[in-house]
């Protein structure tokens, strides 16, 4: 089933990571920034799975298992924080979220 080289998989992973990073830098909506963060996380798991497959080891796959769990927890907490902030400030634009107090 496999034919593409490890280089190709790592290149795709790095490309997705770069796109996610660009999104974090240029977008202003906190929710979209959060989505781009998730994309970066998943891009890194692609690299882990590819390394694991091409080395014949199991550890990378197991790490991805944990990363998925922690990412789900992270999304729940992050969105709860965004909702709590929106209740206070009525905005999710990062330009308006520039102070921790008040």
């Amino acid at each position: 089933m496999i034919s593409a080289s490890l280089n190709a998989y790592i290149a795709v992973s790095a490309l997705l990571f770069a796109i996610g990073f660009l999104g974090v830098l240029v977008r202003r909506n906190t929710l979209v920034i959060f989505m781009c963060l998730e994309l970066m996380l998943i891009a890194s798991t692609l690299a882990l799975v590819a390394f694991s497959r091409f080395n014949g080891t199991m550890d990378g796959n197991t790490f991805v298992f944990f990363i998925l769990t922690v990412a789900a927890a992270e999304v729940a907490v992050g969105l709860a924080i965004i909702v709590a902030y929106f209740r206070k400030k009525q905005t999710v634009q990062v330009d308006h979220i520039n102070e921790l107090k008040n």
Partner: protein
Amino acid sequence: MAHLLFLVFSVFSAVCAAGIVLSRNSVNAAMFLLLSLLGIAGLFVSLDAFLLAFLLLLVYAGAVVALFVFIVMLLDTGGGTSPARSLVAKLAGLVALALIAAGLGSFALRGRLAAPGAAGIPAVGASLKAYAYQLFTLYLLPVEIVGFLLLITMIGVIVLSRKEEGNP
């Protein structure tokens, strides 16, 4: 054939990832995230990690993206105009993108990752038994810690999303 599938899935996920960054509407961005995850799950399948592809779809497409869409609709952020990015931020974004592109190009052209191909390497990630063996022997403590983390997350989210009544 497999090479063609790899190309299709990687281009698909990259295009949809670009769609997240470029779309004006948050709901569209969430849908693009879902499509991009589909492409990445296809790449996982091409790497013989069937369980991980399934889990990715289950956890991300099933729970995370649904949560995102739910929050986007709950908050009703609208398409309100926001002040334009400063020149410094735009420059920083471009410089960061150029650096990442340079790094990507350098290892794509001169990288030493070129493995002899996966044809002779056993696909250990394809069997469920391998996951179970790893998770219940070597990684037993991390599994328990992650379970505890999920419990803490549940309590934390309940506390965070509770309406403050007494104190403003």
